[in-house]
């Protein structure tokens, strides 16, 4: 009796390590990205150069950072179309603040505050007024981008006051050869992997995405949790916005345009389920990696970047089809 109880408690549905791995979408996406890297190294002599890798990893980091926020939203059964607009708003706020003479840290706080406010408004309208996230964040996309235009008066900002060098060093610099944005992404990924698995908030994200009604009936503060989820998503966009300004050395108002699509693609390719309840931080990161590898390979191979959409689009559909097939197999 006690033996069988121990067995039941210890029982895991998953098989061996290998079969578990093979069953993970993330694993296959990673293989695809790795194969891409290897063949690019063999075929071109431009891929494995320090300069190119530096660019690839940094681009990848920006998408990866926001994809972690997006995966959280998608896992909770929502969507956030306003992240690209949050990026530009955060960038414009820090740009305007710093060029008017404010130091880096207070300006960064203002920029993060602006993006958190975007998420707060999204969350309140979605959670308390019950308007679908698609609609709310689509509206916010337009609103936040327009605010950025108003704030900057559509001027390009390239002088950032007393802390100019610090800003550029943060976004464009590196530590021991690792680009700073990549370090930020890795830290965020580690923290959020922990949060997803080991905290109530993380569990509630998945509970809400799995069955919102059940989450409400069991007494989870669904509405409040949703507000924090959208705030987190905007926060990641705000952080990426600040780093992007530092990297580019200037703010233009087309920053982050259509970025929401790339980020959603990264999350979905990495296994986030648009129906809610599923998604991993590792998946978001690996999805972002694959997208950047595709983008970079087209450039290096001299293929028109107009093809980028075709490749990414195909990968999205393949990734979701893969998930469907796996789900169907899992049913018997």
């Amino acid at each position: 009796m006690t033996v069988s109880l121990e067995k039941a408690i210890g029982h895991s549905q998953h098989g061996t390590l290998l079969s578990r791995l093979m069953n993970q979408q993330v694993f296959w996406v990673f293989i695809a990205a790795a194969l891409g890297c290897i063949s690019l190294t063999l075929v071109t002599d431009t891929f494995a150069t320090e300069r190119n890798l530096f660019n690839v990893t940094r681009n990848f980091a920006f998408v990866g950072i926001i994809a972690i926020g997006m995966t959280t939203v998608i896992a909770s059964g929502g969507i956030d179309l306003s992240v690209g607009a949050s990026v530009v708003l955060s960038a414009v706020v820090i740009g305007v603040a710093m060029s008017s003479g404010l130091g880096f840290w207070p300006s960064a706080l203002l920029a993060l505050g602006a993006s958190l406010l975007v998420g707060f408004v999204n969350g309140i309208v979605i959670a308390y007024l019950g308007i679908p996230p698609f609609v709310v964040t689509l509206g916010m996309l337009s609103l936040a981008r327009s605010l950025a235009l108003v704030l900057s008066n559509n001027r390009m900002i390239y002088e950032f006051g007393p802390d100019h060098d610090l800003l550029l060093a943060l976004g464009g610099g590196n530590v021991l050869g690792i680009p700073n944005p990549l370090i930020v992404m890795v830290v965020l990924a580690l923290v959020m992997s922990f949060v997803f698995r080991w905290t109530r908030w993380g569990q509630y994200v998945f509970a809400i995405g799995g069955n919102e009604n059940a989450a409400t009936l069991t007494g989870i503060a669904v509405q409040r949790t949703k507000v924090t989820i959208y705030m987190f998503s905007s926060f990641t966009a705000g952080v990426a916005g600040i780093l992007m300004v530092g990297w580019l050395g200037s703010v233009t108002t087309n920053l982050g345009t259509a970025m929401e699509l790339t980020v959603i693609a990264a999350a979905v390719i990495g296994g986030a389920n648009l129906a809610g309840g599923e998604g991993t931080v590792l998946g978001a990161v690996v999805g972002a990696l694959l997208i950047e590898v595709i983008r970079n390979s087209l450039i290096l191979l001299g293929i028109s970047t107009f093809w980028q959409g075709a490749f990414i689009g195909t990968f999205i559909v393949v990734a979701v089809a893969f998930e469907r097939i796996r789900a169907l197999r899992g049913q018997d």
Partner: protein
Amino acid sequence: MERLRLEGVGKHFGAIRALDDVSLTLAGGEVLGLMGDNGAGKSTLVKIIAGNFRPSHGSIYLEGETCDFHRPRDAQRSGIEVVYQDLALCDNMSAASNVFLGRELKKSFGPVRIIDYRSMHRKAGELFAQLKSETRPRDLVRRMSGGQRQAVAIARTLLAEPRVVLMDEPTAAISVRQVAEVLELIRRLRDRGISVLLISHRMPDVFSVCDRIAVLRRGELVADMLTETTSPEEVTGLITGAIDSIQRVPA
């Protein structure tokens, strides 16, 4: 020994009268069957007792004390647990996580408090064993049979020592063998002195486990009687309205 008492409970949603002046008592260790047609107000009554809705009229007493629940958590704290009609389970999570949903066990991890999966798996495993169910704590609910899902929903009610368990159609969507399992689970609750309010459309289930049967029709309580004093035919008549109303419980 009276456990739960409703006095003149009513609920309206805008113009819809879902419940009208319902008075009912439930003794300790008693199983009361609540029957009624679709839309009769059964789920609404459960949700009022469980703190999901506040009643528009009337009051609820638990062991003589007035209850004023604002949230499900309030009812849980007083020892009222619910198995909801749609079970309220998250398919994407494990059995143990579902059992503890909203009441996760925690442990210290340096400066932070994290979820204690090991204890949750252990406790959930013990509950399933108590219920003599083969459900395993780590399994995903998505891959479970209807009976196992019921066991998860019922195990959840046993986390804190409950005084009243409300069950909304626990046998609606499962196979015959699984129905027998669930009825066994209900008897186990009763043997532990827990009062059970069982909502069901299935006459045989109600007649096999319930001590008393009450009938709701269009929001009104039209019958309250001991099981041995009635018959499935009579109850059917009460549900449809062919029989007007019967009160047959000694006050």
